[in-house]
Every structure is written in structure tokens, then in C-alpha cells.
């Protein structure tokens, strides 16, 4: 084949192109390496030493300005392996650090193990040992001159001014290889938030690390700042958090829940700020600080009562009768009932099947039905709603599910803490599947109407319902952080969410809940002058004795607090739920407990329901 000789000349263009580039590169190299002395000067037998300056982590305050979480110094033993020249006085170091030779060798091996310490390099600072106490630090600092190549890095760890609220506050831990890979901010050995607000507000709390670039001579001695520190980066302290939590109330709640398994959630209805969120059993947050952290963490994980599990937002429970207000609201909004509609109760709902109820007048309308927690009333309402003429159970139940979701059930509410549970609200497809395609009607799923059966809710969702009723029809997504310094909290914690149910129907429910306190199931909560409204719940469950629940708010008009209490396997709602709930309300609104009610407080402090709980003894 003939060659095209005009095109062949283009080889000179291509060859010329790369030749020119190589010449440019050579000129540049000559410039960098030979004619420009500054680089050589910088590096001549000197080396950079990048000292990380850790910012102080943001502090955490409670709603009354009480400082809850602060920082305390802690010291890490650091070294640059190259500067050691491969040798140091091991025994002397063991003595100063107060550890055995085996421990030291183990730490040395861990430091050099690329799997445990992926950033290992003999030429960069490495951490040999962390969590040095003030005392050990003092001793080491004195003897440091004996160990060239070693130095001490100061770090901040947490200190807690409370023994409570571990589930809300969370703690900090050292980053793992995955964190380092996912976020370029972290280097091996950094701290990051674990659980609670420490985790969910990590980007605010951690601040921005700084770096000091120092020059070092061949013997590892610091010769001063590189170019007078123009390349240094000053650390930016983390932002402080102010929680909506009232720490006094939180501590009080934890005392009330001693010896019990369960949760208390209290919310300020107008703002959605969580006032207290108790999960019991719990642990002291100080357990997860410092050198004891690893051991204590393992103990907590192994504990059969699961103290690390936040029951207030991870526990999904049958809501029991605390669910009934939602049903009344749906029936009113859908026109299934009016406030005047009465249903009969023959010691229960008897219509082909039987759902039991206790003694009270019959027939009764909505408000007394709430006050007496009549099962039959809500079963009838549910039946008439689901089996409405001219519609199908599927269509009706779909509507029902949508109302429930609007009210905050079935999905995560979106609280600003990690690992919230969704609870569970079934949809029609769920039942089509569980009945394997056979027809189903209201009677097949009647227990849903009284908060039993398939529905599950977290104590947070129940408290949120109380807040919604307190506000007569709206709520703000519950959140624990009220303010972040120098910035505003997420818009979603400022917006009102409104279920599509009219305000007047909420008014009816609120009045019904008031009646429950004045003359129904919650009489123990009848605090003079506070106009408490409440609803008990006694939830059957497969683990043993019934769960005791309470949901309420106070006062009736212009409410200041909404609360939900859930005590596992403690019996009737009135036995534990109502006393605990009412004490929380009283404590928050009055600041103290009236003398004639202190017997109740005493009883709650000292009672123990763990013994009747479903947790198996091992």
C-alpha cells in the first residue's frame, strides 16, 4: 500500500510536541532544583514536622444554662520512630509509664501493625500510648529528656458534670479505619462522637483542626516554625450546644425509673424541645471516658438489660390505650362519629368476637370513653370506619394508615439523635399478605384500634402525640438540641407539622383526657391547680406482665409539658405510668413535689419491676 508522504511529515509535529514538553519540564526542573535555592535551603538536612493542634470540642449546656459536658486534658505518648534510631531505654520507659514490659511491647507492635494503624510511617509522629493520666504525665514530662524522640501530645477528652443522660449525650471514641476512609477530616488517633448528640452533631462539635509546621534538624530537635508560621493553620474550636433538656428533670426522671425497665419522654409542646428523655436502665456517661472505656464498654454491651439501648427512641412497644386518642381523632375527622355518638359496652365489644372491657356506664359518648378507656367504644368506631358502606376495608385502612403517619407514627419522627426506631404501622398490603389474599374486615384486625396487635410505637412517638393534642393539632419535630452557637438549628426543628385533622376534634380529645384525670383512669395525676390531662395505657405483650404506660400534658389550656411514660412489665397504666408521669409534670411545673404526694415519689424511687420483667435470667 502506498504511503501518504504528506501525512508522514506529521511525525515531526508529534515528535516536536513531546520534545518541547520535555524541554519545558527540564527547564522547570532546573529552576526548581538548581537555580532556585529556596527549596534546597528549606530542606537542607531539615525536615518538616507537622504538629496537629487539636481544637477544643464544643461544650454542652442544658436548657437552663447548666454546663453538662466539658473538656478535660488527657495526654498521649507520641514518638517518631526514625528519631529513636531503633533504640531506647525500654525498662526505664516502662517504669515511668507504670506498665509492664509485655504491655509496652504489645503497644509497640500495635503501633507498627499496618492493620491496626494504617497511617504508620517511621518518619511521622506515631501514637504509642493514649489516656495518660495527669499524674503519669507529670512523671513522664520530668523524665522526657531521657527518651529522645518521644514527646507528649495534649488532647481533650470529655468530662461530665452529671451521672445522667448518657443516652442523650453520647460519648467520644477513637476513630476506626472506616471513619478515616469515609471522612478526610480524620486521621488515625482522632476522636469522633459515638451515640447521642456527640454523634449527630459531630460536625459542629469537633471544630477544625489546626496544624503547626515546625522545622527539625537531623537529630530531631525542633528548630522553630517554618517560614515564621505563615503556613500554620489555627484550630477553630467546636461549637457549643444548648440542649432543650432540663437536666434536673432528667436526673429526677432517672431516679423515678430506678429498678424499672422503660422510658420517659417529656416535650415542650410549643417548641418540640425534648425536656427529658429517660431510658432505663442507663449508665453513667463517665464510664466511657479515658483508659477504662474499652473494658466498660464491653461490660455495657454484655449487660442483659441492655443499658446502651435507648428505649425512649429505639424501643418499639405496643402503645396500648395511649393509642385511643388517635382513633377518636380519625373517626371524628372521617365523620364516623360525632362528639355525641354513643356506643354500647357490654363489658367489652361483642360482635362475633369479644374484646373485653372493664365496668363503666353504657352506652357512652367519646369523652367518657376516653376517660374510662373503653375498649368497646373504639372497636365499634373502628368497625364502622373500616367497614364503611360504599368503600372497601383496603381503601379505608389506607386512609387510616395515612392519618397515623401524619401523626408521626410508623416512620422515624426525625429526632436529632442517631438510631431512632420507626415503630410500626401496618398498611393494607401488609394485611393482604398476612391473610394470604383472603378477605379481611374490621373484625380481623380489631385489636389495632386499641393499640394492640401489629401496631408498635416508640415512647418518643407517644410523647409526640401528647404534644400534638396539647397544641390542638400541630407539632414540631421533637429535638434535643435547642441551640448551636453561632448558627441556627436545622429548619425542620422550627417548622410546624399539621396532621389533617381539625382543631376542634383535638379539643374534644383534650377534654376527654382531662376527664380521665378528674374522674377516670388517671385520678392519681389530679394535681391541684395544674389541670393535668392524661391517658393511661396497659399493653399486653408476649414477654410477661402487661406494660404500664401513660401519656399526658398539662395544663389543659396553654400546655407547658407533654409527657409519655412506658414501664415494661409493670402492670396497669395507673400503677406506674400515671404516678411517674404526674410526678414529672409536677416537678417540672411546680419545681417540687407537694408533701401529700411525697409518698408516691418515695414509692416510685424504691419500687422494682425488673424482677417481673421479661428479661431472662442467664
Amino acid at each position, binding site marked *: *500500500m502506498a504511503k*501518504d508522504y504528506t*501525512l*508522514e511529515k*506529521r*511525525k515531526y*509535529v*508529534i*515528535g516536536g*510536541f*513531546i*520534545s518541547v*514538553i*520535555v524541554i*519545558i*519540564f*527540564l527547564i*522547570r*526542573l*532546573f529552576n*526548581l*532544583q*538548581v537555580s*532556585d535555592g*529556596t*527549596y*534546597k535551603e*528549606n*530542606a*537542607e538536612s531539615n*525536615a*518538616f514536622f*507537622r504538629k496537629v493542634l487539636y481544637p477544643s470540642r464544643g461544650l454542652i449546656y442544658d436548657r437552663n444554662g447548666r454546663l453538662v459536658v466539658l473538656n478535660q486534658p488527657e495526654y498521649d505518648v507520641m514518638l517518631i*520512630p*526514625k528519631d529513636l534510631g*531503633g533504640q531506647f531505654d525500654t525498662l526505664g520507659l516502662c517504669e515511668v509509664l507504670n506498665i509492664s514490659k509485655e504491655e509496652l511491647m504489645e503497644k509497640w507492635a500495635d503501633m*507498627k501493625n499496618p492493620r491496626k494503624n494504617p497511617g504508620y*510511617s*517511621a*518518619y*511521622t509522629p506515631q501514637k504509642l500510648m493514649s489516656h495518660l493520666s495527669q499524674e503519669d504525665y507529670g512523671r513522664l514530662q520530668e523524665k522526657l529528656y531521657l527518651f529522645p524522640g518521644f514527646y507528649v501530645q495534649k488532647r481533650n477528652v470529655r468530662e461530665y458534670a452529671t451521672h445522667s443522660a448518657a443516652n442523650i449525650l453520647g460519648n467520644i471514641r477513637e476513630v476506626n479505619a472506616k471513619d478515616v*476512609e469515609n471522612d*478526610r*477530616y480524620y486521621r488515625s488517633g482522632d476522636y469522633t462522637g459515638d451515640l447521642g448528640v456527640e454523634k449527630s452533631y459531630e460536625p459542629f462539635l469537633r471544630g477544625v483542626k489546626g*496544624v503547626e509546621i515546625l522545622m527539625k534538624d537531623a537529630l530531631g530537635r525542633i528548630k522553630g516554625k517554618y517560614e515564621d508560621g505563615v503556613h500554620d*493553620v489555627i484550630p477553630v474550636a467546636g461549637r457549643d450546644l444548648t440542649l432543650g433538656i432540663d437536666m434536673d428533670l432528667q436526673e429526677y426522671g432517672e431516679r423515678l425509673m430506678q429498678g424499672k425497665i422503660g422510658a420517659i419522654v417529656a416535650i415542650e409542646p410549643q417548641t418540640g424541645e425534648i425536656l427529658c428523655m429517660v431510658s432505663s436502665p442507663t449508665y453513667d456517661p463517665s464510664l466511657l471516658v479515658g483508659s477504662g472505656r474499652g473494658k466498660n464498654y464491653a461490660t455495657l454491651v454484655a449487660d442483659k438489660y441492655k443499658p446502651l439501648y435507648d428505649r425512649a427512641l429505639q424501643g418499639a412497644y405496643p402503645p396500648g390505650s395511649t393509642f385511643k386518642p388517635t382513633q377518636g381523632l380519625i373517626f371524628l375527622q372521617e365523620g364516623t362519629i360525632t362528639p355525641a355518638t354513643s356506643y354500647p359496652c357490654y363489658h367489652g365489644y361483642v360482635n362475633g368476637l369479644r374484646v373485653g372491657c372493664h365496668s363503666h356506664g353504657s352506652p357512652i359518648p367519646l369523652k367518657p370513653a376516653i376517660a374510662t378507656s373503653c375498649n368497646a367504644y373504639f372497636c365499634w368506631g373502628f368497625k364502622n370506619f373500616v367497614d364503611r358502606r360504599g368503600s372497601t376495608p383496603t381503601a379505608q385502612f389506607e386512609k387510616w394508615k395515612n392519618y397515623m403517619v401524619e401523626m408521626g407514627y410508623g416512620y422515624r419522627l426525625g429526632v436529632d439523635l442517631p438510631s431512632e426506631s420507626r415503630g410500626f404501622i401496618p398498611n393494607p398490603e401488609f394485611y393482604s399478605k398476612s391473610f394470604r389474599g383472603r378477605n379481611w374486615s374490621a373484625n380481623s384486625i380489631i385489636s389495632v384500634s386499641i393499640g394492640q396487635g401489629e401496631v408498635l410505637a416508640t415512647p418518643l412517638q407517644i410523647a409526640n402525640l401528647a404534644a400534638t393534642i396539647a397544641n390542638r393539632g400541630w407539632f414540631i419535630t421533637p429535638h434535643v438540641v435547642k441551640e448551636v452557637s453561632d448558627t441556627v438549628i436545622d429548619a425542620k426543628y422550627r417548622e410546624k407539622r399539621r396532621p389533617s385533622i381539625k382543631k376542634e376534634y383535638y379539643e374534644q380529645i383534650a377534654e376527654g383526657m382531662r376527664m380521665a384525670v378528674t374522674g377516670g383512669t388517671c385520678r392519681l395525676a389530679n394535681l391541684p391547680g395544674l389541670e393535668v390531662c392524661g391517658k393511661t395505657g396497659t399493653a399486653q405483650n408476649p414477654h410477661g406482665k402487661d406494660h404500664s404506660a401513660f401519656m399526658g400534658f398539662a395544663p389543659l389550656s396553654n400546655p407547658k409539658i407533654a409527657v409519655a411514660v412506658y414501664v415494661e412489665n409493670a402492670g396497669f397504666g395507673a400503677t406506674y405510668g400515671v404516678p411517674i408521669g404526674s410526678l414529672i409534670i409536677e416537678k417540672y411545673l411546680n419545681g417540687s413535689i407537694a408533701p401529700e404526694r411525697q409518698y408516691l415519689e418515695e414509692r416510685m424511687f424504691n419500687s422494682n419491676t425488673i424482677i417481673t420483667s421479661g428479661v431472662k435470667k442467664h
Partner: protein
Amino acid sequence: MESKNIDANTSVFRWLDWPTIILYLILVVAGAVSIYAASYDFDRASMFDFNEFSGKQFLWIGLSLVIGCAILLFDYRIYETYAYPVYICVLLIMVVTIFVAPDIKGSRSWLVLGPVSIQPAEFGKFATALALAKLFNSYNFVLNQKISNYCRAFIIIFIPVALILLQHETGSALVYISLFFVLYREGMSGLVLFSAICAITYFVVAVKYVEPLLLGLPVGEFVVFCMIIAVFSCMLLFYCKDAIISRNVLIGFLGSGLIVTALSLSGVSVPGLWYFIGIIVAALIYVSIAMYRHQIERYVVTLIFAASSVVFLLSVNYVFGNVLEPHQQMRIKVALGIVDDIRGFGYNVNQSKIAIGSGGMTGKGFLNGTQTKLKYVPEQHTDFIFCTIGEEEGFLGSSAVLLAFLALILRIIHIAERQRTPFGRVYAYCVVSYLIFHLCINIGMVIGLCPVIGIPLPFFSYGGSALWSFTILLFILLRIDASRKERRD
């Protein structure tokens, strides 16, 4: 039959291009030694930490030589015959990679096979080169003859590019752009290359230099306008071969420029943007009236080139400022070195320059470099390997490496031109293009002349996939080249 095979094999080694092989061996061994230096750990002997990277790299080199010999032992015709099947197979593997590869820092390009991970995108290079060569070897294929020929070439080039982009390996995808050199050698108009170079230059200058203002224009835009005018005049002179018009245009610009300068110095504010647009439009009108009608095509090309340059410049700023999201702008700014990314590559490049600069004329000596070993970034034995050479071997060593690369590239161009078939020639130019691109971008990045794009330095950077990829590329070329005498027999 047997004796014929032996003959064929001996002839392969007889006609093998030994200069290329020697250059290859020098580069590969120098690479492994540099990797050893880059990851050298002084207390390796006293502790159990044996040096992993260089040891492995020697293993990869050994395997490369085995692969290279195997390639030489095959009949040269199979590379031509199986070009398309190989291409399609590699593409399929790349598709599979997108779905099965683990997410490593956002990119899904590594296929994990037990203890080894390979990067199929690397093997896309020789497959694409074979397919392109095969296309150009089709009977009576002349690139410039039909537009559909361009389309076919583009399809072969851009399928792997798309697949690599889907793996989020932008750097590896950009490598294929270098194949425009091949198209250029095979007849594509030089204006395309020229426009590309102009576009990149204009973009970088206009975006990078915004301070200070000259005549109300950012200095970058001001310079680009001047460059557009200079290019316009040069094209009139060299491309249209019209010295008179070129001179008149230049005089017009300089004259008006002087007036504008004088005005602005005496305190009158002249809107620079409108001055440049006005003067360029005037020049375009003048040229379109005054040009020689018999060479109309070249004038039209020149006019369109100048006009579209102005439009390009004006749209660059608009697109950059108004269409791109702030974080995208930020990334480009970091890449162009406008903003220092302290924790990212900005610091890295600065460290890299210091390391190279500290090497001086003769370097600090083998294993005596301290700067490269202090670096925080893990790329020092891969993408930033050239640092170690610069620091330890100095200007002499790093120039030697650069010159060795230049020699290799020029040698392959020489080999390309002595091929008797378009297949061999196009294939060889593909190898040249890849090498040029990798060399320019990698070294340019390390010495701070190019934005940081993570591609390896051929034969040097640590890693089996890249080394094997370039070995296969090179040895297939050597095999094809060795057969140039066979045919005549």
C-alpha cells in the same frame, strides 16, 4: 512444522527492536528501585516490617517479562485477527467491573480476584489501540474520505471512555483523549489539535487570573483577548499567507491599543470588554472585505476561528460563574491552583515541589531523601514517584529519566513510521499517544505545572495493572514490528 516454528521464533528475536527493549528495562528497573527508596523504612531490618512495595514491584516486573515473552512467541497475525474480540472482551470486563467492584474512595474500578486486585481500565488501553489499528487497516480506509470513518474511530475511542467515567476514574478516562494524536497522524486536520490547545489555554488563563483588573477586565481575560488577536494575526500570516492584511490588522490593534492606553492613563475610563469586542469585530469586517477571493476557504476558517474564540471566552466566564455549582467551581479552582487546598492535593504538590527542589544538581543520594518520606499522602510510591527520583537523584537523575522517556517515545515514532501496514503504524501511534499523555500529566503534576490528575508514571509507579498494561502495549508493538521482515520473505 516444528523447524518452521523455531525459525519464526529466532527471526522474532533477530528482528526485535533492541533499543526499545533496553530502554524499557532501564525504566522498569529504575522504577522498582525508586519504589524501594520511596517506601524505604530505616528500621526495616530490626523490626519484622519487610519492605512490601518494592518487593512486590519486582514480582510484577518478573511477571511482566513472562507476559512480554509470551506475547513475542505468538504469531503477529493473531493480534490483528483478534483485535475486535479482544476489544469487546475487555469492554465486557469493564462493564462487569462497574457492578461488582467495591467502592474505593468513590471509584469502582478495581476488580478483586482473591488476593490480587486488577484495574481493567488499564487493559482498555491496548484493547482500544488494537481495535483502532484494525479499523484503520480496513480495506481502502482513509480517515478523511468519509465522515462515517471519523464516527467509527470516535465510537471505538469513546466507549471505553464512557465505561471508565462510569467507574469514576476521570483521570484514566482522560488518557484516551490523547488518541487524537493518532487521528491527527492519519489525516485529521491540524486545526482540531490547535483549537484544543487554544481552548485549554484560554480557559485556564481566563479562569485562573482574575486579579488585578485591566481596563475593567480581569487580567486573565485581558490576556486572552490579546492572545486571540495574536493568533488571528498569525493565522492570517502563516495560514492564509497574507502578509499585508496581517500587517494592517496588527497595526490597527497596536494603534488603537496605544490610544486606549493613553486615554486610560489620562484618567478616562475605557470599558475594556467593549473595546476588544469592537476592535475584533472591526478587524473581522475589514478582513472579510479585503481578503483575496481565490483563497476564500482559509480566510473563512480564520474568521470563524477568531469569532468563536471570542464567543468561547465570553461563555467561559458565564458558564463558570453562573452555571456551575459553587463546589464544582471550587474543585476547578483547586485543580488550577487558584485556591490552596491545605489538606488536599494543594499541600501535596507543594510538598512535592519542595522534595524535588531539595534534590539539587546531584541529589541527596540513594535512600537519603527525607522529604519524600515525610509526606502524609499515600501516593508517594504511585502517582508521585517522580518526587523520590527528583530528591534522591537530583537534576541529573530526573533529567536522565525524562530523556529516557523522550528517547523511548521518539524511538516508537520511528518504529511506527517504518511499519508497512496501517495496522502497525496506527497501533504504534496509539502507544506513543498514551506515553505522551501519561508523561506530560504525571510529571507536569508533580512539578506543579498541571492540575493534579491521578494517573501513574508509566513503568515507574507502583502497581501491577499499570505496569502490565504498558508492557503488553509495548511488547505487542515489538512483536508486530519484528514481523516487518517476515512478510518480505
